[in-house]
């Protein structure tokens, strides 16, 4: 019984360690929204890799991060942060925009071979 419990604990610990390694391996790219513009407007990420986009909306108004090519859509409240996971993607250009202010809020993700 004790042996079984020990095995279970080891399995749980390895799972947690494995999980933390996976999280740690995901690259993070920060994007700012200010005056309804994305900074930087062009971001480069490696091909075939999952990337965490950390979007910081510095405007007092909400914005919606949207991309048809990336298949992503997310409301980001004013003066708040949001996370959007993208990829793994093949090399290419993936435009995104702010759906609430699409005239100015435009950008693209450029996926390149590492």
């Amino acid at each position, binding site marked *: 019984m004790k042996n079984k419990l020990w095995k279970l604990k080891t399995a749980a610990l390895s799972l947690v360690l494995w999980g933390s390694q996976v999280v740690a391996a*995901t690259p993070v790219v920060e994007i700012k929204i200010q005056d309804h513009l994305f900074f930087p407007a062009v971001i480069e990420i490696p091909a075939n890799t*999952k990337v*965490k986009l*950390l979007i910081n909306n510095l405007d*007092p*108004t*909400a*914005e*919606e991060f949207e991309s*048809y*090519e990336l*298949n*992503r*859509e*997310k*409301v*980001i*409240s*004013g003066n*708040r*942060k*949001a*996370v*959007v*996971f993208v*990829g*793994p993607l093949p090399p290419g250009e993936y435009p995104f925009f702010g*759906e*609430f202010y*699409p*005239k100015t809020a435009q950008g693209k993700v450029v996926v390149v071979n590492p």
Partner: protein
Amino acid sequence: MFLNSVILILQEILEAALLISVLLVFSKRYGIKPHWLFVAISLGAIGALFFAINMADISEWFDYVGQEVVNALIQFSILFFLGIFTAFLPKNSFLPGESPDTLNKESTRHHQKNGWSIVWILLIVSLALTREGSEVFIYIGGVIGHPSHIQPTLTGAGIGVGIGLSAGVLIYYGLLGLPAKWIAPGGLVLLALVAGNMASQATLLLTQADWLPYSTILWDSSELLPENSILGHLLYALVGYEATPSLFQGISYICGMLLIFLCNLLRTTLLTQHKNPKTFKINTHS
């Protein structure tokens, strides 16, 4: 600002209009009083306002993916209630021109069952409106900060609502205009498409939140029918069209549709068992 507002509001309204129109047709067909519409819209508006006000905090849950998780949860709940609604639709149906008043002795049992159908409908519609309405409130709320944007945005929103509602009316009368025997199957197919769309959207949200792993792209029809074209927007709102859907989305779409068809099969099986004298429990009091 104006055109953007029309498209954004129209997309949200169209999704809701399709669901509501189909449920209204089912209500007419199965003698459920349509009064639920006003209650559901009121509940949905309150829910949407509450969701919109708390969106900033909800978004920060689960390490900044709370928005996706809660939205997916709402979608799955709607799916669940759509299934129950389909499985427990009232026994009696009416042809156009008929009404529950023409019913025979079974009317009491019929109305009791209808009561539950109304509960499912209220849950389905108010949850759907909560999700879709919250985005509208957040959008309009953001615009209020820019006085010059208010008028074009509100005009655009008004036109969006107008077109969306007209589409809903068109779907409602289009479905009721079908030959009588095709009304229920037609409604069922539309309901299945709504369910498929919801399951697919929920899967996409969970992938975006990294709660589901990435899966390969099924096809790429972005050149043939871009999502940002008028037809693309229309099909996205109505049947969840996507130019580059993932494998998991495709699977969940099919599962969502299957859920409705299987629940309908369950309903017909239960009704047939009831009709069968061998299994029907004789009620000596009636």
